[in-house]
């Protein structure tokens, strides 16, 4: 047993079974653990209580418009990659009651409806998803208007990141320099080898959670095997998104015929925006009782693919599918940069996998570039 806690920046090895103790430490510190679990033919993000909840031995197979869970490497807990869910479900919930009001004897009284959120510990955050959280930080925390709901969840967050041991054909983090290697912004980061975890300590809070575990300083062999694993993943990534001519390429091609072509294939279903870990748009819904004496306001995820989204007084500013697809792509890969100083895409590939008709944003950009104005 190691006598003290490791310092920040240290590289360690940890027996796989010791992750149970890390989980126990997190729970004892008051965290609700969210991690990957096998449910409904997919690896979803849900509450996990112990190591046994993790999808050991399972991995995903992904392609445009297709996702399957298949057996993976037996001893691996993190053989899968990003799935249908993203962490924004917890930091930026899909449905959030904002407030309620009631009228008694002619006077209205308001009640804040938001209970203090749980303190979350995210287990198994990939590099692209860490980058996505950083992008949403810019949206919700950096500007003039802070989102208090996001802030409350974000500030108490514990991040256990994972370096990817393989890549899917939908992954293109390399093009956006967001992965597959985890480089910062975590409390603990692990690389999974067949026999052990190689761990990097990213913060005091991370070090603290290694209490009572049998960590060891990483041997040179373990460290280099971990390095090699990530390098291998990097070399597996085939999908590419050229970014050097963005945002200009899209701004210069707002009338490109490709927009008409993709509009024939796109369903305006909104799935791409909703699975995207950086997309942040919401709408509010007001509800009341029949007498109009009790009301409440709920915030819901919205999508630029719905008609209500661009409905303004007098009509709709994006009535066609073409206009709506163009809005999505040019926001992600052009105007996002003007707004928030970075592209709205981290290359996770979710919008490609979870598009019911397999539209690939990387291919759309390529097609526009090929016959650019």
């Amino acid at each position, binding site marked *: 047993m190691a006598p003290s806690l490791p310092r920040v920046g240290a590289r360690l090895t940890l027996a796989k079974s010791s992750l149970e103790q890390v989980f126990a430490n997190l729970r004892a510190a008051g965290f609700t653990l969210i991690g990957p679990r096998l*449910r*409904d*033919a*997919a690896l*979803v993000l849900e509450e996990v209580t112990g190591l046994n909840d993790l999808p050991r031995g399972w991995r995903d197979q992904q392609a445009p*418009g*297709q*996702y*399957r*869970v298949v057996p993976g490497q037996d001893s691996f807990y993190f053989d899968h990659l990003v799935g*249908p*869910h993203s962490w924004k*479900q917890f930091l930026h919930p*899909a*449905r959030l009651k904002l407030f309620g009001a009631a009228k008694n004897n002619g006077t209205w009284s308001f009640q804040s409806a938001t209970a203090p959120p749980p303190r979350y510990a995210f287990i198994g955050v990939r590099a692209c998803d860490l980058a996505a959280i950083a992008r949403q930080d810019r949206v919700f925390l950096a500007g003039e208007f802070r989102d208090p709901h996001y802030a409350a969840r974000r500030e108490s967050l514990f991040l256990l990141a994972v370096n990817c041991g393989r890549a899917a054909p939908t992954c293109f983090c390399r093009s956006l320099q967001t992965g597959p290697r985890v480089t910062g912004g975590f409390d603990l980061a692990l690389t999974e080898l067949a026999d052990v975890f190689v761990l990097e300590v990213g913060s005091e809070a991370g070090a603290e959670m290694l209490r009572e575990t049998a960590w060891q300083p990483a041997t040179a062999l373990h460290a280099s095997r971990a390095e090699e694993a990530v390098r291998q993943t990097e070399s597996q990534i085939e999908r590419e998104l050229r970014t050097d001519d963005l945002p200009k390429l899209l701004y210069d091609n707002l009338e490109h015929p490709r927009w008409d072509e993709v509009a*024939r*294939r*796109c*369903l*305006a*279903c*909104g*799935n791409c925006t*909703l*699975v995207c870990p950086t997309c942040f748009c919401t709408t509010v*819904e*007001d*509800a*009341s*009782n*029949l*007498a*109009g004496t009790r009301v409440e306001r709920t915030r*819901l*995820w919205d*999508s630029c*693919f*719905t*008609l*209500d989204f661009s409905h303004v007084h007098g009509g709709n500013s994006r009535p066609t*599918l073409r206009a709506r697809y163009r809005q999505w792509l040019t926001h992600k890969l052009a105007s996002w940069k003007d707004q928030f100083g970075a592209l709205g895409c981290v290359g996770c590939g979710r919008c490609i*996998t*979870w598009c*019911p*008709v*397999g539209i690939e944003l990387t291919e759309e950009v390529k097609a526009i570039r090929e016959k650019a104005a």
Partner: protein
Amino acid sequence: MGASTRPKLAVFKFSSCDGCQLALLSLEDELLELAGAVEIAYFLEARSQTLPPPYDVALVEGSITTAEDSKRIQEIRQQAKLLVTIGACATAGGIQALRNWKDVDEFTRAVYATPAYIETLKQSTPISAHVPVDFELNGCPVNKAQLLEVLTALLLGRAPHLPAHSVCVECKRRGTVCVAVAQGIACLGPLTHAGCGAICPAFNRGCFGCFGPMESPNADALLAHLEESGHAAAELVRLTRGFTGFAEAFRTASEKWEKRP
């Protein structure tokens, strides 16, 4: 008692299974509140006493399938300030609109001992094919929360909030894993009007489209993709020709795929 000042609500039935009226009755908690807020003037399924027209709001369930029906709906339109259709039958012709692609006389001969007693139209059509409709509420049956939302909005004089986007949005909001992508199930959700809360995919079934087409359905794109992924044209015809198969977007789609070799 302020009976005369409360808005008068009437509920009418045409060709239907009564399920949407049951959705109204199953409001339970809110039903008493509703009965206090409106005068239930005509609702045979709930109350034998009836009050004469005019009515402030008429809820209409069911499709038009007889000559008699097509006269009665004209009268109801005259009697009601606002006419709201409830459910797939009233809004799209219902499952009984499957006959619209078949020979009804042949059915009558096969089913009834004395077909001469049966008087029926060749087609089952939605209410909007006969009279102007102020508001259409989708679903088979309607979602009772949506029904309450419409009544509340009408009482308070505001627009009801009933988004017309895809069912997919509801799947994603509730965290359901897409059955189309993860299991290869043919799902109508991307073409279908939200409102049910995405129930079927949450139970590992594809969406049946019972809420009718969404606001901007691109049926060609989805069906072409499904065909490419190995679903036979006949299966796609069955998929789009269901509870709301006679609604325009689904009707044109099924007729197009029916003609495929």
